């Protein structure tokens, strides 16, 4: 792995981006209008995910019923074909530790951002299908949920945009892909809107403390850019829907 030129002396990464460039970010909203209350399809680089939001609805189980606020439930389905090599595990991956961890992280990230107290005694069920993954998946999941929740009309304080940043020697690299992710330590951020508030900070590798500030700075800048991209996509989508509605 180390034999690859992760960041060349000329300042280019393995896929031709510079250190502070995001990957291609494309999204469509309300893709599954019949199957859900809000949905989005997101391509961030070669990460491709579908997010479906159902709810707020009445919970089927009594245990999911909370008198004061809505219950948030997030299910992540990492499809077996989403990587280069088909995953060989038989049976469901639903209860895999890694997946459970991702789900918990996502619930914690959004619990405080969605105004769940407005929907007592209901459940909001978010389902994500990862069709293809190419590094920094958690960040993409956050973006997908944000878009789908807005589409579902669930009250929230602000956008949350997610992005992963790697640290190669002393250079922070924004929005890592799978090759880069494997080669260095990475941080995933979830940033509230245009603020510098972090609703998620995940560091799974070792990272020198004195470099972290640098990494966060570029990460937050990248997340703000993603927020703008999401905002733009949503506004375009809204425009289209309004014109459709008024044409009727």
């Amino acid at each position: 792995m180390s034999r690859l030129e992760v960041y060349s002396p000329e300042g280019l990464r393995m896929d031709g981006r510079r250190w502070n460039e995001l990957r291609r970010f494309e999204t469509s909203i309300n893709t599954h209008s019949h199957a859900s209350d809000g949905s989005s399809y997101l391509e961030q680089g070669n990460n491709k995910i579908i997010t479906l939001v159902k709810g707020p609805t009445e919970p089927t189980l009594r245990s999911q019923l909370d008198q004061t606020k809505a219950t948030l439930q997030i299910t992540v389905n990492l499809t077996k074909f989403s990587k280069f090599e088909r995953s060989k595990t038989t049976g469901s991956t639903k209860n895999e530790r890694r997946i459970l961890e991702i789900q918990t992280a996502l619930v914690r990230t959004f619990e405080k951002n969605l105004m769940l107290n407005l929907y007592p005694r209901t459940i909001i069920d978010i389902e994500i299908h990862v069709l293809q993954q190419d590094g920094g998946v958690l960040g993409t999941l956050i973006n997908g949920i944000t878009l789908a929740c807005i589409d579902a009309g669930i009250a929230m304080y602000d956008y949350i945009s997610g992005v992963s940043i790697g640290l190669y020697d002393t250079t922070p690299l924004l929005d890592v892909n799978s090759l880069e992710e494997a080669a260095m330590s990475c941080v995933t951020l979830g940033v509230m809107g245009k603020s510098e508030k972090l609703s998620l900070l995940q560091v799974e590798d070792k990272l020198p403390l004195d470099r972290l500030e640098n990494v966060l700075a570029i990460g937050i800048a990248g997340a703000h850019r993603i927020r703008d991209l999401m905002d733009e996509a949503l506004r375009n989508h809204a425009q289209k829907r309004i014109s459709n509605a008024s044409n009727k």
Partner: protein
Amino acid sequence: MSTKVVVPRKKRLSEGLTVTQKVFIRSRNGGATKIIREHYLRNDIPCLSKSCTKCQSIVVPDAKNELPKFILSENPQVIANIGKHYVVVDTNIVLLAIDLLENISCFFDVIVPQIVLDEVRNRSYPVYTRLRTLCRDSDDTKRFIVFHNEFNEKTFVDRLPDETINDRNDRAIRKTCEWYAQHLKDYGINIVLVTNDRLNREAVKKESKEQGYFTKSLYEYADLLSNADEIKELIPNVDNYAESKELLPEDKSEVVFPEYYQTSRVMGGLRSGVLYQGNVQISEYNFLEGSVSLPRFSKPVLIVGQKNLNRAFNGDQVVVELLPESEWKAPSSLTLDSEHFDINDNPDGQGEEDEFNRNGAEAVISDKQRRLLAKEAINAQKSKKVQPTAKIVSITRRSWRQYVGQIAPSSVDDKTNGIQNVFVILMDKCLPKIRIRTRRAQELLGKRIVISVDSWPENYKYPLGHFVRDLGDVESTQAETEALLLEHDVEYRPFSKKVLECLPSEGHNWKAPVKLDDPEEISKDPLLPKRQDLRDKLICSIDPPGCVDIDDALHAKKLPNGNWEVGVHIADVTHFVKTGTALDAEGASRGTSVYLVDKRIDMLPMLLGTDLCSLKPYVDRFAFSVLWELDDNADIVNVNFTKSVIKSREAFSYEQAQLRIDDPNQTDELTLGMRALLQLSIKLKQKRLDAGALNLASPEVKVHMDSETADPGEVEIKKLLATNSLVEEFMLLANISVARKIYDAFPQTAMLRRHAASPSTNFEVLNEMLQKRKNMHISLESSKALADSLDRCIDPEDAYFNTLVRIMSTRCMMAAQYFFSGAYSYPDFRHYGLAVDIYTHFTSPIRRYCDVVAHRQLAGAIGYEPLSLDHRDKHKMDMICRNINRKHRNAQFAGRASIEYYVGQVMRNNESIETGYVIKVFNNGIVVLVPKFGVEGLIRIENLTDSAEDAVFDELEFKLSFKPKTGDKVRDVHVFEKVDVQVRSVLDPITSKRKAELLLV
């Protein structure tokens, strides 16, 4: 590989940034995987030519906010017919002639397309690193740049349907040339594509007449240069042969070496366990015999004969296949070296086929039988004398590098003045001679020359190489020293400008701050308040006389509670050598300083090594201190680590320190401290020996140089004083304490040193010899048992015998090695020789890189400064360890070779009769060690007797019986026998190597 290629869609993201997909199929372990990666194309990649006015406006800064430097000259070299030009190199040129690219008299303003760089990296990583270094360091002189053609939207090419990947890459290179030619047309600079790929050259001509750039083969290009004759000499050999193949039909002789297996067959064989992979080790006494250590077998598997060795070089990584049981044999007891073998071979002709075709007919064996064979082989190694043999069927990685040698005079035809084929005999006797083509054969006779090996086709008996440069006359000090350094891969060139820029700007005037709480100093170095001021301690250093790089200093003080405060202070190198700097990279790659008899090759620049870091007396210096509280029994009560500032009171030599300690009139505090240190060190040593530390020996000698003429004067065996062991004991103690601390703080990546117990098989032969001849035995149960049994090996009539046994057992030992703590489990950290459970090197950071790492880790462990990621990453630590292990070994060999050379020079002047000991007996000779000079030499049977055929070799008794030249009585020579030998130094006429020649008296 599939040939159907779907052209991926492209999407424009923003002005100047487009994304596309890179799709390819990767096969691994037989399965095929489709890989899809994003690939971004951009328009902000500059041409990096100083004359260009367009690119200045498109460049963007990198993460450090630096703009790229424009390197290619606006006034490049002018050559015939073409004029001002930049060169674009193809992959084959880089792989073939990297030496030539590095040459300072040709190849200026070179553009390396990214695709070439990638291809080079996949084919040969070492060449890739050299090319990258060349691009990094060639700012003003050579001007090499990398052009990222794959990421530039103007030069990116899609793979066409039915196009092979190689053709696509060639097309990408041509596209790059075309773009450059177009781009620089206005500035009158031409582009020359240098490639040895004929098809590529033809494609250029075919594509269009108007592409506006030139294409040349390496030979054609060299021809255009003003210094063509000199350069053409340096062009690798394969090229010449390939070009002239049609002209010389006689070169196409019959195949002499078996062909290598195909990759698929090798992979399959390795997986099913019928083929094995390992590194070849050629026997140092017989160049036609090698062995491969394989994890499955307890002993190395033998490879005997030229045909079975199948063109392997010493150190190559190879794949072997076992031979049928009928061909297993014992290791040969014959000695053979390449220089005296087949001296009369003609470099123009091919080898005679007699030997090769003898065992040509080979029975076909099935895989199943082979597996049974392997089982049989493992059993045979355990029980019988006979050893399984194998043959080499493929070479995974060549260990080829540049070699030093000299032209064999017998191969030179002194009548012709044109190009001729000559043999070059290498310094390393484990290697075959190399065939080179040169027109300067006569001029180069009697000189040490550097050559490079290019190829070894199967129809050539000897490998092909080419001349690189000459070092000077044989036996001139300068040439010999350089040859020795090159042979041992020691980097001896002066430090580059980039490295020297990392040194403190004050230079020799640098001073440690007077006060540690001075705000002005703290603003410069915020870590200053964390240093402890130890300038009041009575510290002194004890080193060999004339030592200028003083790593360590000591002090001892009686504490009120009766215990001793002992401090070891080590030069604070890491204060000046920070991670990630060019200086650190250089130190890491050199790994160690190399000490030759007359020269020292520093790991760090002089300014640091001999001044700023060196703990010189009477001045303030930064140090890293280990402070113990020891009780009277030298047990550790307490240990503390701190960065400090110290002032050494005196720098002693070992003798001076000894005199001062012994002088009863000296009662000042410094001397009292030194006496206490000595007493404590004696207790420490005793404790260590009780724990089973080994006391080994090596025939080390020291060469005294005449101070005026720098000629070697006399040879002396190294003496040891009590003060030597004083310093040594405390350094060991410091190393152990530090090892524990850093392992505690960084359990996965602590830099440590281990010494494995030697497997009993290593001692088998020695034990057998001892048993047979002296009825003694070395036991190997533990290091304690070994130490005790070594103590028992005493011959009452010969005091030296014990030392001899120690020397021979040292050679049976495993070498100690550096490692990071994640690589082994705790019980394997053990240092066998020192009998401690954990050990590292901490005390000589000026001359060893391991110590530098240990310093940084200790600084991290005590919270002085955070540890850099480089020393917390297992993978990076692994690379560091590998490198310093190799460099350490090379440095040792280089040092020994240097002593050997100078001992030879000393003996040249005085021929004498000395006492020697027989340490090995062969079928056709004996090896004798002469302790006085620390040399050993082979006495061939021809020199022992006139009738070599009558000599009888008794393998079981380690005895050689022969009729001496004078007298009729048969003389028996046993191993361990004390013999008188005539020692003189002779110049071998063939290898022009001076070595000690011994003759039995």
